[in-house]
Every structure is written in structure tokens, then in C-alpha cells.
């Protein structure tokens, strides 16, 4: 089974975290050192998210059950 683990964790969490960082930077109440750390983290997240979005090719597969009753992904004609 080659499907990568879905998501709940990754993109949406990253984006939510990024939104929080932007908010707290905008509010400007964190100490400067923390703000710099937040900024670093935010830029990393933003880059990671953009990378994910830029993955060019849509992965489309067909879900099938093999003889053992296990799921497997097959190419779609």
C-alpha cells in the first residue's frame, strides 16, 4: 500500500499554526527573541505549505480489494 498517510496532521495543521503565528506577530505582544523564532518557524511553514501546493501532478488511484480482502491502490485507466 503506497498511499501516504492522510493529512489531518500535515497541511491543515501547518496552515493553522501559520495563521496563529501571523496573528501573534501582528499583535506584537511576544518578546522580540520569541518573535524572531516565530518568524523563522512561520517562514518555514509557509515554504513547506507552498511546496506541497506546488506538487504538480494529481495522484489519482483506484481503490480495490485484493484476494486476501486487503485494500490496494491501482492505476486508473
Amino acid at each position, binding site marked *: 500500500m503506497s*498511499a501516504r498517510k492522510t*493529512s489531518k496532521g500535515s497541511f*491543515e495543521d501547518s496552515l493553522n499554526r501559520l495563521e496563529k503565528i501571523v496573528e501573534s506577530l501582528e499583535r506584537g505582544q511576544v518578546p522580540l527573541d520569541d518573535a524572531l523564532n516565530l*518568524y523563522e518557524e*512561520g517562514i518555514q511553514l509557509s515554504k513547506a505549505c507552498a511546496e506541497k501546493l506546488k*506538487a504538480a501532478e494529481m*495522484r489519482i488511484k483506484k481503490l480495490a480489494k485484493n484476494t486476501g480482502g486487503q485494500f490496494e491502490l491501482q492505476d486508473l485507466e
Partner: protein
Amino acid sequence: MLGPERKILSVTEITRKIRIYLEETFPQVWIQGEISNCRRHTSGHLYFTLKDETAQISALMWQSNLETLLFAPEDGMKVIVRGAITVYPPKGNYQIDVDKMQPVGIGELQLAFEKLKQKLAAEGLFDPRRRKPIPVYPENIGIITSESGAALHDMKSVLERRFPSIGVVVLPVRVQGPGAAQEIAQAIVDMNRYGRVDVIIVGRGGGSLEDLWAFNEEIVARAIHASRIPVVSAVGHEIDFTISDFVADLRAPTPSAAAELVVRDRAELLETLRNMSYTMKQTLTDRVNGYFERVKSLVESYSFNRPKDYLREFAQTLDEFERSLQLKFHHFVELTFQKQLNFSQRLESVNPRGVLKRGYTMVRHKGTVVTSSKKLEVGERAVIEFHDGEVPTRVER
């Protein structure tokens, strides 16, 4: 002439009698006819005439009943209505008070649809509060539809255009004909078991009511309701409503619309990301600039500059000191020079040659100064030295 046994009724009395008679005789009738003269009163109630080739009957439908309809009645539409015959005394006419209406030709399926809809509604399957939220940024989408249908093609192209980085898992099923409902229901169960999708789109393209029927079956409705993963129902066209639509977490008017609803536009998202990066950079830059300004104004403040003032004063003192030192040095040199000068003059005054200038001479014999007349013999040579030269001489006596 009227007979003496005649009984005279008022208009109200006869109308009442007719009314009771009609209402008791026709408490519920089904009538088929064509709608005409259809008008919706501001109260929301619908007034119309039901007619066929040779007769007509007034009809009205209360708003509360009207709301249950899945279509809008209009002139020329052939319908079957259910209702009670009543009389409207002020006008003296009879009419049918309609509580059900269905377009002619749908008949049985529609009735089954209505029955199931009522049953599931009563169980709370359509309760909006039970709907699961559709994830805002799904990364993997499950699609349950026919592998060869237009719906899959449409969804694929929308997803590819809007969000090519999406993962799609298709579970092909038959979407019409006997057994289709069972396949769809099983696919929903399987997709949940597989689990690696964030949202499921279940649907098909447009077709007749019979074609869409699988999505009106109870087994599908129950599977959608039981799905742990949010389900978007996308069956037929905008005008088609199915039981699946009511029970799903989200109803999409068409399969393409479902794809649009499920993924956000990637270009928009990238723009959002860019904006966020910009905001972060800007707020931080502003902040650092703010600090910089503060430091600058502190550096320029009076108290911070006191030490500098001291320093300047000290430098000035130093300059002055240096200047006076220089003066003193010059003075010293001059003084020394002056002393030297005096000393030379005094030295000069004791110089024996100085005496010569005053008219004295010196006599030297064999390199030494002759200081006595007895030191020279007659005939010896000597030198007389003047202040400006010498004269050789010889002692004669």
C-alpha cells in the same frame, strides 16, 4: 304557488347544509387535473383552478403544505392532488383544500421517496446539527461513482485545475440499475475502512428519476449517515434532489460543483501564503525599526550624552593644556637662547683677541706668546699679531 308545508331556509342555512354534506361525503379525495389561474397570495397560500376538458374546480393549498413540495406548481402543469372538499360561504362556491400534490408521471417512485424521506426525517437523519464539517484543506479525496461516467471526468478536471496537488482515490461502483444501491452503500463502508481520505464525494451525473434512484434508497442513506468520514452528495443536476442529498454532510448541486466545494483554489491559497509571509516580514521589520528608533532617540537623549559632554570638556582642557605647554616651551627655549646670547657676549669680552681690537697686539715667538721683553734676543724673529692680521719682525737691539 308554494305549498303551506314549505320550509324556508336562509342562504346561510342552506350553505351550511351543503357544506356539511360535501365535507362529510368527500373528506379526502385524489383528483387529477391541470393547474390554471395559479396565483400565490401574499400570505403565502396558493390559489389555483384544477381543470380538465369539460370541468373545473377551485383549489387552495396552505403555505404549510406548500413547503413540503419539491417542485413549484405552475399553470399548465398536470398534477394529482389530495385534499378535502369544502365550501367557502362568502362566495358560495365549493373548492378542494389540497394537502398533497405531485406531478403526474412520477407517481410511485415519488411516493416511495416521500415515504422514506418522512421516515428518515422522523429518525433525525437530516438534522443539520448531525452534519460533520467538511475539512477546509483536504489532501486526499475519496470518490465513489461510476468509473466510466461523465461525473468522474468532470470532477477530475475540476480538481486538476484548482488543486493539482490533491490525492484522489476512486472506488468505482455501478450507479444505476439493480444492485447499484448496495454497491454504493458498500463502497461508503469500504472507503471508511480504508480510511486515508479526508472527505468522500458520492454521486453521479444527471439522468431520469429512475436513473438516480439508487441515491434515494434507504441502504445508501444509512451508509452515508454512518460514515465517519464527511460525505458530500453530488447527484444529477441542480434541480434533482435525492435522499442522499438530505442525509449527506453537504449537498452539491452537481459532481463538478462538489469538486469545487471540496478543494479551495490553489492559486488563492498560494496568494494567502504569500500574504502571510509578507505580513510576518512586515510586522517584524516594523518592530525592529521601532526598536532602532528607540535606541536612536536614547542615544540622542540629554542624559545619555552627558559622558560625551564630559569627554568633550576634557578634550578641550587637554587642548588648552597642550597650548599652554607649547607656549611655556617656546618661552623656555627663548629664555635659554637669550641666556646663551648673553653668555657669548660675556665670553667675547674676555676673548684675548677682543683686546687686540682695542689696539693691543700680541708678540709670538716660535708659536708661543712672548709675555716679557727679556724673552727675545737681538736678531731673533718674532710675529706681531694684530686683531686683523700678523706682521713678521726682527729684534734689532
